[in-house]
Structure formats: C-alpha cells, structure tokens
C-alpha cells in the first residue's frame, strides 16, 4: 500500500517534469539549442501567481491566466532579444547566452522579491481522495497535475500533427532551409515554439509550487535541470519521449528517496541517466544518429 502511494507521488512529480521537459524538447527539436533559462521561466510563473494571489489578493483563476500570459510574453521576448541574433552562431555561444538569461531572471527575482523563501498558497482548493480505507491519500494537487499532464500531452500531439503551425514546426525541425523554400516563416515558427514552451512552463509552475508549497528566486533551477535531464532521458526532440522520461525520472526519484536514501536520491537519478545513455546514447525514444561520410 505504501508503495502505491509512493508511486502516485512519483507520477505527480514526473508529470510536472514532463510538462517542463516538453518546453526543452520542443525548443531543442526546432532551434537546436539548450534553453537553460527555461527553468527560470517556471520561477517567474510562480512569482506571478504569488503576486496576484497573495499580494493583490485576486482569485486563483486570474493568477493562473496572468502567469500564462506573462510567461508566454517572456519566452517570446527572450527569444527575440537574446537568441535570435545568435541563430547562426556556434551552439556554445547560444548556451552561454541562455545561461546569462537564466542569471538575469534569477537576479531580477532576487531584487524584486528578496532572498527569503516565500510560502506559496496552493491554487487548488480540493479535498484529498482517500482510497483503501484511508490508507492511500491522494491530494487534490496530485489529481489535477496528472490530469493536466495527460490533457497537455494529447492536446500538444494533436496540435503538432494536425494544425498548420504544428506541421511547420516539424518541417523546421527536420530541415530549416528546405522549410524556408516551402514558404515556412522560420522566425515565426521558432517564436511560436518558445511561446508554447513558456506557456507550458507557467502551467508547470502552478502545479509544482502548489504542491511544494514555497518559492524563492532559485527554486526554478533544480526542477529545470531535472526536466532537462528527463528530456534527454526520453530522447531530446521527441514529445512522447519527454513524457516518458519525465514520469520515469519522477518515479525513480521518489522511490529512491523513500527506499534507498533521502540524501542520495538525486545521485541515483543521475546515475541511472548515465547508465541509460551508455546503453542507448540518444535516450529512450531518441532518433538514431546517422553519420554521413
């Protein structure tokens, strides 16, 4: 019974990782860059919710909508100002710029909200579900997170497969130059990808901070790195891969924390990642790497 409740806890954490990992994986697939600032967009989303709900005293729904709007705008702005000028530069230069953006967001948050950890009021006001005569208790946040994850997964896959913008995204990720010849606006497509990724980050921030429930300027960094690892775990660039990677990572982390060691749970997650990559160098669902001579 205890195992089951740990498993559910793991799936909750994994769902959050999956939603964040989608942002990483889409951006990587299309712009071929590691967006290290993505974790900090989550933090910004959390602070928007915090401001609207706890400081201005508005309703949770308004707070979530505000977070999604702010994060989307933020993602597009970052792409326009920091990444677009470097579209043709070496990937290392873009990586360092992304790190610069990450520092910038963290320090802005530090300036505005201070270094103290703030307590975060949960957005959801739901009764926990009790199963098996009260032995398993699933919190409202967990239920909402898992449902949100499934909905996002289905929605995003449909969007990418069916809509014109989605197909443009696939085209750009396969071959940028050929996509241009087919009349796809590459800059617009990449901006859309950033917008979607950042909006998902806002959703993830609401889910994550509601269940912790606290927030500080650096609390986006670790979920960001974990989600990034989840994206790689599942095969970066692949949307179902991000989902599988995220959930596996969450489950492994929670089970490792409960059964092996509290302090070593992160080390276990990372060790498994290395082992998986040794066996499958491009992740679980990653495309095979073909080398042309």
């Amino acid at each position, binding site marked *: 019974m205890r195992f089951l409740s740990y498993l559910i806890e793991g799936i909750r954490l994994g769902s959050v990782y999956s939603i964040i990992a989608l942002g990483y994986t889409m951006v990587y697939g299309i712009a071929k860059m590691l967006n290290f600032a993505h974790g900090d967009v989550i933090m910004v989303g959390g602070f928007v919710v915090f401001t609207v709900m706890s400081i201005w005293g508005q309703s949770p729904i308004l707070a979530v909508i505000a977070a999604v709007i702010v994060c989307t705008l933020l993602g597009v702005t970052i792409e326009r100002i920091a990444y677009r*000028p470097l579209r043709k530069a070496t990937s290392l230069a873009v990586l360092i710029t992304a790190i610069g953006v990450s520092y910038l967001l963290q320090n802005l948050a530090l300036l505005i909200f201070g270094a103290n950890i703030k307590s975060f009021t949960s957005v959801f006001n739901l009764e926990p579900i009790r199963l098996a005569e009260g032995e398993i208790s699933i919190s409202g946040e967990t239920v909402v997170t898992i449902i949100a994850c499934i909905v996002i997964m289905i929605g995003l896959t449909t969007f990418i497969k069916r809509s014109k913008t989605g197909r443009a995204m696939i085209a750009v990720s396969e071959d940028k130059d050929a996509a241009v010849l087919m009349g796809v606006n590459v800059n617009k497509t990449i901006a859309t990808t950033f917008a979607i990724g950042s909006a998902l980050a806002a959703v993830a921030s609401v889910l994550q901070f509601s269940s912790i429930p606290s927030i500080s300027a650096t609390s986006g960094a670790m979920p960001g790195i974990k989600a990034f690892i989840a994206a790689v775990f599942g095969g970066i660039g692949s949307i179902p891969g991000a989902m599988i990677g995220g959930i596996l990572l969450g489950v492994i982390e929670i089970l490792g924390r409960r059964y092996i060691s509290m*302090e070593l749970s992160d080390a276990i997650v*990372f060790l498994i990642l290395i082992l998986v990559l040794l066996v499958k160098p491009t992740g679980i669902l990653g495309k095979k790497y073909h080398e042309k001579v």
Partner: protein
Amino acid sequence: MADYIRKISKNTRSNLITVGTIILIYLACQVLIGAGMMSFLMKGLLMQFCYYGMLAISLNLTVGILGELSLGHAGFMCIGAFTGAFFSKCMINVIQNTFIRFSLALLVGALSAAVFGVIIGVVVLRVRGDYLAIVTLAFGEIVKNVLNALHIGIDSDGFHAAMGAGKLELKEGGTMIIDGAQGIIGIPRNSTFTISVIFLILTYIIISNLVNSRSGRAIMAIRDNRIAAESVGIDVTKFKILAFTISATFAGLAGVIYAHNINTLESSKFGYNMSIMILVFVVLGGIGNIRGSMISAVILTLLPEYLRFLKNYRMLIYAIVLIVMMIFNWSPACIKWRKEHSIKDAAFRLAKKVFKARKEA
C-alpha cells in the same frame, strides 16, 4: 643572441612570452604586497586568479581542443579538493614536513581526479554532443551529492564511513574528518600565492605544449572530423581518453590548491553553477585559446568584485554584461558591424589616403 632567439620555434617563443608576463605580474604583485599597497580584497583574489586560471585552461582542453562540451568540470575539481584535503587532514600529525605533505596531497588529489577522468572519458566515447553535456552535468551533480552525504571519521578502531547524517558512530576520542554537508573543517592552509602561480605556469606550459605536439594535433583532428581522423590511423579512443584525463587531472590539482586556501571545504560549492562559471571563462576567452582562458578567468573574477559598489544590482549587471558580450562577439550582424567599424581598418584606410596624397604631391 638574436640568432639564437630566431632559432626558437614560434610556439616556444609565444610560451616564453606568456610565462614571462605571468612572472612579471607575479613580481609586481609581490612588490605591491611588500610595499603594503595591495588591498586585502585583492590579496584574497590573487589565489583565485590562479586556480580559476588553471580550471579554465584545463576545461579549454576538453571544450576547445577536443571539442566536447563538458558541464561537470567542477566535479573533477571537487574530487581533487576532497581527496587532497582528506589526505592532509589524516596526515597532519604523521608527516610533519609541510612541503612533503602538501606535495603528496597534490599528487593524491590529481591522481584521484585523473581516475574519474578516465571513467568519464570512456563514457565520452559512447555519447556525443549535447548528450555528453548532460552526462558530464550529471557526473558533477553525483559527485556533489555523494560528498554531501558522505561521513568519514576516525577513532581507535580505524576509519569509519557512512552515508547520511547521524549514521556514523565513533568511539570516544574519535574525530570526524568528512562531515557530510559541513564538509572538511580545519584544512591546513598550505597553498600560497607563489605555489599557485607555479602551478598555473606548469598547467599552461603542459597544456600548450600538448596542444602543439603530435598528440595535440591528433586531438584537434578528431575534433574537426572524427571519421577522417580515424581513417588516417588516429586512435580516437586513446586520444579522447587522454584529453579528458589530462583535463581532469589539472582540475583536480586546482581543487587541491583551492581546498588548502580555505578553512571549510563544502561540497555544495561545487555545483552546476561552478562548472558553468568555468565554461563562461573558456567561451569568453576564446574557445581553443589557452592564453585567452587565463585572461578571461582573471577579468571575470575581478568584474563581480569591482561591481560590488552596485550592491544588489551587481549580479544583474554581470548577467547583462554576459549576454551583451556574447551577442557582440558571436552575432553575425555584430561581426559585420565590427568589421566595418574596426579601428585597424580605419587606420589602414587613413594611411592609404595619406600615402596617396603624398604620391600625388
């Protein structure tokens, strides 16, 4: 004499110039310290310049020369720092001679980092590009995490080790050497500015000679085209592991020097942020440019200190400087603008004009 200088290869000459400059700066610093004209802050920074310089040079070997992105360089440094400091703490009463003890500590730290360099080097052969970046990042986090949970103590029965806080039971009179998140406390402060400068020069000479040697050319050939390199008979496995191991060894050495410069060694310092910081040194100094790594390590260590008057805005400005510098350095539009507005070109055009005018006259 002039004839002799001409005979020295170009590489040796440039090495001599660099080493000479470092020694001159070192002497100037010593004079300033002797005259009491150096602030306390600056004195503290001098050591940092050296070990950050070493880290930047050694990372440049993997990132610039081998062409593999590593985000876990702090992990190697951490291993070096902890094994070196552990050795010093254990041997503090056994080996009384500071010189011998510290030399052995440096050796132990460098060797243990090298062992992990080999292990990661083997992984490098399997995984490539951004995936490798993640593997190295994961490696750095594992090292940090494990050392954060590791407790090692000594009592009359010998050494005891345990993972996790409060699990280690020592007999009376036993002492804790590595105390989990608290790390190692009371490391003898053996590393001095002079030692650090000597090791910085050593690192520079060894790595720049490696780059200009047969092995270095082989490593660069692998970077530029692995398949072509393989087809002309370069042993990719050997050279990749070689580059990774040497890079790790020097990071370990820098770690030992770092550990013997501070009182408390905590594993939390060696997180992903430290690796990123070293990577920023390398990228801003010029990927593959060893001298550049050293210079940018010094400048980027100084910059946050000199921005202290900005108080809370300090790191914000640092981040903006970083972004602007990257865009200015790498954006195609900026490169074009720089070419059009470069001082060198303007001077050249002016000289041409003057020359033409004189000819006409």
